[in-house]
């Protein structure tokens, strides 16, 4: 073998070994304050525990969950007609959605707390403890989330955002919730796929296929279109969602949440 080929081969091999070994630190590590990211070799080889296949022998726990923590396909809780303490968190899309949800809450006796974190994403929510703080402060028994519009084009999103999404879902825990997907204006790089994979059965409303009338910025639906969007979500929650609650139509119009919290865009 040509000695220069040997030199090149050993160089590539040394580099590969270096990156494979580092890849077992799947979350990266810190060197002098700098976050060092690692390759995906270990994850691709299956070092990360993958989703467990469900068998007939698997039984549901008291919350209707399988041993893997997920609800089985098609599982639905019975309609809960009690008054709820609803927390609605998300990005700027809430400006259009929340007032319409507030109208439903008024009609059905629910209390709504609306938290808009402008320009936020699963990354900043996942990295911060804000969701846990909000849950501790407002003790919601139902949560709506609308996030994803600020990460439609994130590269390698499933790898980059999955841990943050998982952390958010862990923070939500056993509280019934609905995740409203982003209103795509162009094909995304995988945020909707990621949400479909991670969010519980019957808890994810895919907005990507809906038609929206856009406001001047092109990204947000107009207010009437956002209200229709919320109507569609609520119709879905009642008819198909995993955690249906009493959400009778209040007729036209909007209202105001009992409390509105606004956070500045993340730095």
């Amino acid at each position, binding site marked *: 073998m*040509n000695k220069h*080929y040997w030199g090149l081969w*050993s*160089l590539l091999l040394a580099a590969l070994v270096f990156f494979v070994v580092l890849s077992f630190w799947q979350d990266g590590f810190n060197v002098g304050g700098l976050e060092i990211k690692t390759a995906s070799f270990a994850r*691709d080889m299956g070092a990360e525990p993958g989703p467990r296949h469900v068998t007939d022998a698997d039984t549901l726990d008291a919350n209707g969950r399988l041993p893997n923590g997920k609800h089985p396909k098609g599982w639905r809780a019975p309609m809960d007609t009690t008054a709820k303490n609803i927390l609605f968190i998300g990005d700027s899309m809430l400006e259009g959605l929340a007032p319409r949800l507030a109208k439903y809450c008024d009609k059905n006796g629910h209390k709504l707390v609306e938290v808009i974190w402008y320009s936020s994403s699963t990354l900043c929510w996942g990295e911060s403890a804000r969701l846990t703080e909000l849950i501790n402060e407002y003790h919601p028994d139902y949560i709506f989330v609308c996030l994803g519009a600020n990460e439609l*084009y994130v590269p390698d999103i499933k790898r980059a955002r999955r841990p943050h999404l998982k952390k958010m879902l862990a923070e939500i825990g056993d509280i019934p919730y609905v995740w409203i997907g982003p209103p795509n204006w162009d094909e995304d790089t995988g945020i909707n796929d990621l949400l479909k994979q991670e969010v519980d059965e019957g808890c994810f409303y895919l907005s990507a296929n809906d038609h929206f009338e856009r406001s001047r910025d092109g990204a947000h639906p107009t207010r009437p279109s956002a209200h229709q969007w919320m109507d569609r979500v609520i119709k879905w929650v009642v008819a198909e969602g995993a955690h249906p609650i009493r959400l009778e139509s209040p007729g036209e119009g909007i209202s105001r949440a009992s409390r509105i919290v606004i956070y*500045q865009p993340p730095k």
Partner: protein
Amino acid sequence: MILDTIDISQLLSLLTFNRDEPMLFTSGLFWVLFLLFLPVYAMLKSRRKKMMIFVIAFSLYFFYKSSGIFFLLLVATSIFDWWVAQFIDSSKNRTERRIALTVSLVFSLGILLFFKYSNFVIWNMNALIHGNFQPLDLIMPVGVSFYTFRTISYVVDVYKGRIQPVDDYLDHLFFLSYFPCLVAGPIVRSRDFIPQLQENKPATREMIYGGLFLVMLGIMKKALFADYIAQYNNIVFGNPTGYTGFELLMAVLGFTMQIYCDFSGYSDMAIGLGSIMGFNLGINFDYPYRALNVSEFWHRWHITLSTWLRDYVYIPLGGNRKGKFRQYINLMVTMLLGGLWHGAAWTFVVWGAGHGIALCVHKLCKPWLDTIASTRLSRTVSWLLTFTFVAFLWIFFRANTFHAAGQIISGIITDFEWAYLPVFLERRFTWCLMLAIIYALHFVPRRVWDSLRERFIAAPWWLKLVLFILLIQLVLQFASATVQPFLYSQF
């Protein structure tokens, strides 16, 4: 312990066809496989036949991984065109030769047209006759546009008597399936490639490490620069009305460099891999944004494509041999086809037409332009005009629709304010820095790059390793870094 955690079935699924994950030179999987490929190739290099069979098998696997069962199309094309070339060479009857050439062109172009343009035709028919024909659910074989042009050039060259047909079918299959050129070129000609294959010279230190240098340069352009700056460009081109004129202009400038880094970076990797394997695949991009006019731009941009279009479309149409008017028509036809080759959409046709018109205007004005003295001022003005025009046409190349292209252009003209510059710089500093670096690197003199290449080749092994690791780590650092999608200037 580590081996216990490896899921063999997941590993195997990585190695089989997945339409969402074609094997590219920037993927970790390719480099792992290349690491297995290289020692075997090195051992077989001097035994030509065995080396060829091994490389063909690897190339076909490479194609299968990206295009599934369609790798058989490549094999079928290679068998058919090899046979046609033999027939053309042996036949003395002109009509027979012409028929054979026509059949070959229909076969090769038929495959390309079917996979690439069927839905384009269906959409246009629906629009014209208000029909309701359903688009076909087609998977376009990766690289079909490139290998089709390579096989056409081979058969046409044999027909024209420029080259002798390749006697050994394996030589032809090797040429057509050669994996470095398979996905995105360069469109190497048989007459340049086959003699190197038949000679099978051993690769020198300069070729091997010079090739690695080029591969690293390509990785830097494609995986570091292009992929990062593409994020912002995608956001803006996907939703132009949401952005100010300043932001739109930055996206146009960003895309201008993104497309260069993307194309030329991938070409560099292909040429570098070829060099490592002992083949000279020529150059494909020669600092195109240094061009002082559009004709020069096309001598520097995607050179193997532009020379292919010149030799197999423009010249056969008559080139400049049939008067000025016919020359302009020929130029327009060539550039329109060149535009359509890039993608099945009218926006690509307009992009091609724009370049065709510019080439005609440049040819028309050339006698007058030649009288202008070459001063720093005249060169600067020429460069600025050329760059602005080329960047302007990229809007049509990138925009999803004419409507979106119009929104971008009108946004830049009617809604441009320098006041956005400080906010933009602050919130998208890394993006701006990267763009500035790419533009600066583009104007680094060639001798500096040549000198860097020589130094890299001469550098000790450990230094090359450190540089390689640093580059890959940089790619990893930026692979999941995101660009701020919206500027909430009201805050």
